[in-house]
Structure formats: C-alpha cells, structure tokens
C-alpha cells in the first residue's frame, strides 16, 4: 500500500522536476480532507471539517485557541488519526496515519514546538531527517548540503553550535530547510510567526510566497489577521472544531468579517471595564530593581497599589526569566524585588506567600498544581499546617472555597488532573488570591481558557487590584492587556523597549514589541537574531 503511494508520488515528483512548474500546476488540489472528525474523550476537537490545499497557494488556517487547527494539521502530518473522514494526498487516500508514510508522500509539518534534536548541529539534524543509507555522510558533505539548501532558499542557519543554542528564528529556518530537503510539496506551518518579531515574520512570509510560486501548497496556522491579508490566498476559519469560513479567497473577505468568524457572533466577553475603575489608588508597592537573569538584561519596574501593570511582548523575550525571578524560583544574577520596601524572599515560597505575594504561574500544571492530589490537598499547597486535619474534614472545608470560585467538579475529592483548563486555573486563583494579597504576579493567567473562564479570571485579578494589591500581569494577547492594564511595559530581547499609558497606541506598542525603542528608552543590540 505504502509502496504504491511512494511510487505514485515519485512519478509525480519526476514530472515536476523542473524548478519552476508551469502555470498549469497552479490551483491543482494536492490535499483534500473531507468530513474530518476527531474527539479526545468527551472533547470534540474536529467536527466534520473540510480542507483543500492547492499547489501555488498559501492557505491560512485561522481560529482562536482550541479551535482545532493544530489537530487538523497533526492529522495531515500523520501524527494523529481522524475518527472519521478521508484524507487524500496527491489523489491517494491515506489509510495509514504514520508520520513516516506522510513524510514520504511529501507532507511536512513545522510544529510550534520544534522537532529539532537540541544536542545535534544543524547539519546533523538535516541528516537525521533525510532517509538515506545506513552509513552517514561525512560532516563535510552534510555541511555542504546545508549550505546549498540555505543558499537556494535564503534561509541562513549556523552549523557551529548545537541546534538547541540557535535562536528561535534560526531553529524555525532549520525546520523549514529540513522540510524542503525532503522535497516536501505540501508545507504545513503551525503558528510560525508567533515567536518572531514583525520583521522576521515579514521575511518568512516572503519566503513562503516564493515556495508557493514554485508549485508547493502551503498551509499556515495563525491568529494574526494582518498576516492573512499580507500573503495568503485562501482562508479557512475554525471555531470549536467546526468550519465557519471554508476555503474562501482572502480578497473576498474583510478583517472584521474574519474576526467575527473567529470569535463568534455573540460578544466575545472580553473584559473591558478598565475605564470604569478608578485606576491606581496608592503609592508604589512592588519594585523591581536592576533585575538581571539569563536573557533579562537589567530591568526596573514599579507597580503601585491598585494598579494592573501589563507586561507585553513576543514570547521568549525575557518573560520566563522575569517570572522565575519574581516568583523566587530562580536567584537573580543581579538586582532584586521589593514588596512594600522589603525584599521578596528567594527560594522560600512560604515566606513569599506570608509577605502577601501571590503567584499565578504560566504553566499551572507544572508550578501551580499537583495533578495526582485531590482539590482539597491542592488548596493547601504552599500553606500546609504542621498537623493537618482528617481527610474528610479537609474536604468539607474545601467545599465553600471551591463553590466561591466556581470550580466545577465532582467535589473536593476529585484529582486536580481531572479539571478542565479553566477550572484548574480557578483552583490556583482560589488558593493564591485567598487572604487579600498585597501583590500578585499573574503569568499568562487566561492562557488556554475559553472566553467565559477567561473573563472570570480577568475579573478576579482586576478585583485584587481594586482591593489595593499591585498586580503584575505578564500577557501574550495584546488585546487582553489593553483591556485590563493601567499601564503597559513592553519587553523585547530582555529589555524594556517602551512604557505606555491609556489610551493605548497599538502601532507604537507593536513597534516596541518588534524591538524598536519607543518613548525615549534606549536599546542596545536590538533583536537577538540579527541576520
């Protein structure tokens, strides 16, 4: 079965061996996915989705978090299988969903989490991905191949360090090179620009256009509308596993049109009552002074009582280090954090909590909860008394807390691992925001939540500020920060590149996020990944 597919594809390849396929190739459907359904337990990820990818075109796959975009792409790459529906690649129906078989059929997926082996160099990663003989080519041959590909497609990658030490942009280029090396004619890119600056994203889109022009079919997952209009030919919008816009030419759609399709006709529920609040009510409570850790190159911040300070920026520009240092998980190389004038203890989370500093971690399952323990036990994490009550009593005591925070569950005896994302986050908040904290570090607090839960979480955090706490909110979605923050600080390459007050100027914030210095701040070096 597979053998025949490969022969078929090879024949196809031979016919298009010339570097620039003729215009006849353009528009030919290379992929046809029909009525794809996929469920994970009770969750329906895909509910009858169709997708066609045509040679010479870039197809944008649009949707909010959890819409099913990634599942669809994983199925097409053979990393997952549909419960129902058919997938045709080059006119052949796929029966075996196996990454190897689909790779050989010419499908390549560049995932959000890169699939490079971090300890191998770029050329070694290239060799790993190319099935050739049992004995490896020499290092020199491998490097020549890398240089040749890099030159041909304009995607420069260093080969003198392990892949894990390359910048995010370089790693992405290497992923693309691997796909192109395998002569993939169907390229799937899962949120390729999420980790890039605007300039890098622009370059990437240009490269993609070139690849499409050579007769390939591309699909790009994104949630940025600008990109859809900047370089895509067609667009499909998914919402909660269903297709709301299918296979529409981009030119026929407006931004407002697609945005509504993405978030639904009803109000998105975005929390927008910042204007109605009084704003910062008191003096500075939380001070960050000359903080240096890893990528974080010495930053100063100040959050006042009653203020929500939003930290904006593209992921990976120092947010993780800021979180680690502020929460006391990592010892800063220099500088420190002061709460009401006293240093926040490092490496002693109970002391941090005792000082009234709450921490809502970015990864709630890693740092916030213990999945294998029940909800009552999770509510005690970080404040366990020396002698604990009997289990039954503990669980009874947990009930009102869970009800007050609207944690929907079978009861306090349920394990935290059984909670949905939103309920898990509410559980973390129930514990962290208990007892009127003086300061709150909230890292991506609404990540992965549905609009309802996201709204509830936002309200609770803003409520803390209204009660006088200093809230430092590290966010990924700019729109969300614009709605909740009293002030926004932009991080780029580990530095503060701009501070903004309402009414916010989106464009200038965007520039700051791209590493441009805004509002008089100086920046040395700029983007870490200058070509």
């Amino acid at each position, binding site marked *: 079965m597979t053998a025949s597919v490969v022969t078929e594809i090879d024949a196809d390849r031979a016919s298009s061996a010339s570097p620039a396929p003729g215009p006849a190739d353009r528009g030919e459907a290379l992929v046809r996915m029909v009525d794809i359904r996929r469920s994970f337990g009770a969750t329906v990820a895909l509910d009858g989705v169709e997708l066609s990818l045509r040679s010479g075109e870039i197809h944008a796959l649009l949707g909010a978090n959890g819409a099913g975009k990634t599942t669809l792409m994983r199925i097409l790459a053979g990393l997952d299988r549909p419960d129902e529906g058919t997938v045709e690649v080059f006119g052949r129906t796929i029966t075996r969903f196996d990454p190897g078989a689909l790779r050989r059929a010419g499908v390549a997926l560049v995932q959000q989490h890169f699939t490079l082996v971090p300890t191998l160099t770029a050329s070694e990663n290239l060799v790993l991905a190319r099935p050739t003989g049992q004995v490896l080519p020499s290092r020199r041959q491998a490097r020549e191949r890398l240089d040749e590909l890099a030159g041909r497609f304009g995607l420069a990658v260093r080969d003198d360090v392990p892949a894990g030490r390359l910048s995010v942009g370089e790693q992405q280029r290497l992923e693309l090179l691997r796909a192109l090396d395998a002569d993939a004619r169907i390229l799937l890119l899962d949120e390729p620009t999420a980790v890039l600056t605007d300039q890098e994203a622009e370059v990437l889109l240009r490269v993609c256009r070139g690849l499409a022009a050579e007769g390939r079919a591309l699909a790009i997952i994104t949630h940025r509308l600008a990109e859809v209009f900047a370089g895509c030919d067609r667009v499909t919008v998914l919402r909660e596993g269903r297709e709301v816009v299918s296979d529409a030419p981009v030119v026929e759609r407006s931004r407002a049109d697609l945005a509504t399709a993405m978030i639904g006709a009803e109000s998105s529920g975005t929390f927008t009552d910042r204007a109605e609040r009084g704003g910062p009510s008191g003096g500075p409570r939380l001070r960050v002074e000359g903080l240096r850790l890893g990528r974080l190159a010495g930053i100063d911040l100040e959050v006042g009582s009653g203020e929500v300070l939003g930290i904006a920026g593209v992921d990976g520009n120092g947010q993780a280090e800021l979180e680690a240092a502020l929460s006391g998980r990592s010892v800063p190389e220099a500088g420190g954090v002061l709460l009401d004038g006293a240093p926040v203890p490092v490496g002693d989370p109970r002391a941090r909590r005792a000082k009234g500093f709450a921490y809502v971690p970015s990864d709630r399952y890693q740092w916030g909860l213990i999945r294998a323990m029940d909800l009552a036990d999770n509510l005690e994490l970080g404040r366990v008394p020396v002698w604990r009550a009997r*289990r039954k009593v503990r669980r009874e005591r947990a009930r009102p807390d869970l009800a007050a925070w609207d944690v929907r569950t079978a009861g306090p005896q349920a394990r935290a691992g059984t909670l949905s994302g939103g309920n898990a986050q509410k559980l973390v908040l129930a514990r962290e925001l208990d007892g009127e904290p003086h300061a709150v570090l909230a890292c991506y607090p609404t990540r992965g939540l549905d609009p309802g839960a996201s709204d509830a979480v936002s309200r609770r955090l803003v409520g803390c500020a209204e009660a006088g706490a200093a809230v430092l909110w590290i966010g990924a979605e700019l729109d969300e920060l614009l709605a909740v923050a009293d002030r926004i600080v932009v991080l780029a390459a580990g530095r503060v590149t701009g501070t903004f007050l309402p009414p916010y100027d989106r464009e200038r914030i965007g520039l700051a996020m791209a590493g441009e210095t805004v509002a008089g701040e100086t920046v040395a070096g700029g983007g870490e990944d200058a070509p």
Partner: protein
Amino acid sequence: MTATTVPALTRPNRNPLAAVVARAGADGLVTAVLVPVGAVLAALLLGAVLIVSEGENPLAVYWEVVRGVLWEPRGLSNTATAATPLVLIGLGYAVAYRAKVFTIGGEGQYLVGAVASTAWVTAAGVRDLPGPVLVVTGIVVAVVAGALWSGLAGWLGVRFGASIVISSLMLVYVADALLQWAVRDGIRDPESFIPASRQIGDATLPTIPRLDTHLGFLLAVVLVPVVGVLVARHRGGYRIDALGFNRSALDANEVDSRRIVLLVMLVAGAFAGLAGFTETAGVNGRLGAEASVGFGWQAIIVALVGRLQPVGVLLAGLGLAGLTIGFEVSQRTYDLPSSLVGVITALIVVFVVVGDALAVRGREGR
C-alpha cells in the same frame, strides 16, 4: 467548550456499592489490592510449576508452608522475628519511594547501623551500663549512623547531582568493607577465634512474653501507625507525596525540594540502621563477618508489594517472612533448593511492577 454541564459539587452517588468504589477510587482499588494479590497468586502459580518440575506436589508443599508458619512450634514467633528487619527497612524505603527518591542502599545502612551500635554497646566502660540504657542508646546510635550513611548518598545527590540509585548502592559495598574491618580488627572480641565482635551482653533486647520474639518486633509494629499518621497528617508527609507527584510545584509553593530529598534519605537510613541494631541485639547477640544476609534487598520487595503504605509494608513483611519460614520448614520434608523462596518473592515484585504498568495502560486506554 471546556465548561462541563455537571452542576458544581454534585453529591456522591447514593448507591452504596457505587459509593464504596467511588470513595476508594476504582483505580486505587486496582493498584492497592488487585495488583499485589494478583502478583502473589501469579508468583505462587509459577512457583508451583517449578515445584512440579522438581517432582514434588505443589499443593502439599504450600500446605506444609502454611502449616510450618501456623502450627509448627515457634512458627509464628519465628515469622515475627524474621519480619522485623523487613518491616523496619521497608518502612524507610516506602517513605523514600513515595517521594520517588529511589534509594537501594538499605543493606549498607543496616550494616553501618549494626556496626556503630555494636561498637557503642560493647565499648569499654559503656558495656557495663545497665541494660535499658544500653538498649536505648544503642538504638539512638544505630538510627543516627544509618541516617548519616544514607544521608551521604542523599547529599551527593542534591549537592552534586549524583544518581542516588547508584551512589546509595556503592555505599553498600563500602559498608560491607567497614563491617569486615570492624569484626576482624576494629571491634573484635580478643577471645574469639573467628572474626566477630564481643557478645553484646546486657544490650540484648528483652523477649516479649507470649509472643516469644524480641522487642524489635514490637517496635516495628508500633512504628507502622506512627509512620502512617505522619504520612497522612503531618506537613512532612504532604511534602513527601508532593515531591513524588510534582517536584516543581513543591519548589514553587512549599519548600526547596532538595531538603525533602535529604529528609527521606535520612528517614530511610534511620529505619535501616535501627534494623541493624534490633537484628544484632535481638537475634544474633554479636556481630559477625556474615552479617549481610540481604534484608536490605528483600525490604525493597516489601515496600513495593506493600504499595508504599505503612500497613501494606507490615502485611508484606509478615507475608514474606512467613513464606521464608514456611519454606524452611517444608524443606525438611521435601527436596527443594533453598533459593526457591527467593525466586517466588522476586517473581511477586516483578508481577507487581507489570501489574502497575498494565493498570496505568488500562486507565489511559479508557
């Protein structure tokens, strides 16, 4: 989409049977009871095959094992005595394994505890003290020595990142060398022809009347609920479990996890060291070159089959000891290799491991 339609905090199911299952958790029931019981049965079945291949009747042999424990004179008291070191060391392992700190150095800590406490109670000047003082101080010395020996492996782990599995094991061989030196030279009885310490004299553990075993057994039985309460109700127990489940969450919210790693290593060593003293002072009466008889290894089986629960450890320890004593009795009648019981107990733990893996796979598959 993620919001389930289940109303908040629904009451548990009213059906009594369903409620029982729900309370224990169907998965908990499988891993706590079905897996170990099934493993024991499977191992006995395979053991029966081995017995048949030796030309004996397995039912008769197993009956003799049961009879040897229950009705043979001293069968029960011998079982209690044999279970004592297994339960003690097993309790320590159980605490460490709950935290997913996999030490396997119990044998070494046992030896160091035995050497240190014997050295203390047979030392000139000390050995003339009254018996109760010797017993109490002997216990303290053994506990401290075992804890330090184990703590060394823990410290190498948290300070240098050395694998605790391997470092705790290397220290077993070092401890054995220490024992050899001690009985040959260090604390040797000058009167003795073979390498051995002095008789421990007044430090001998008193015999419990009626039970006909030494005080160590009572100590082990008392320590079971003590550990049980500490694990279930003390902050330390919470932290140990949290370390086992999610180390980063413990670090981010409660306490530096390295301190808990050290703690469980100290606890594991303390129990093993204590067993070293109770075995010397309760059974052997002196320390000889052959003191290493493998309690430290068998206790791993006891901890795992006992599901890392104190009560489970007690049951598993008694069961393993009963199997050993019973097979010794049955060997008088039937011609079987002495190592057969070792094979059966090792099979039990292998089947427990397999059963756990299958239970997890089954859960994922649903």
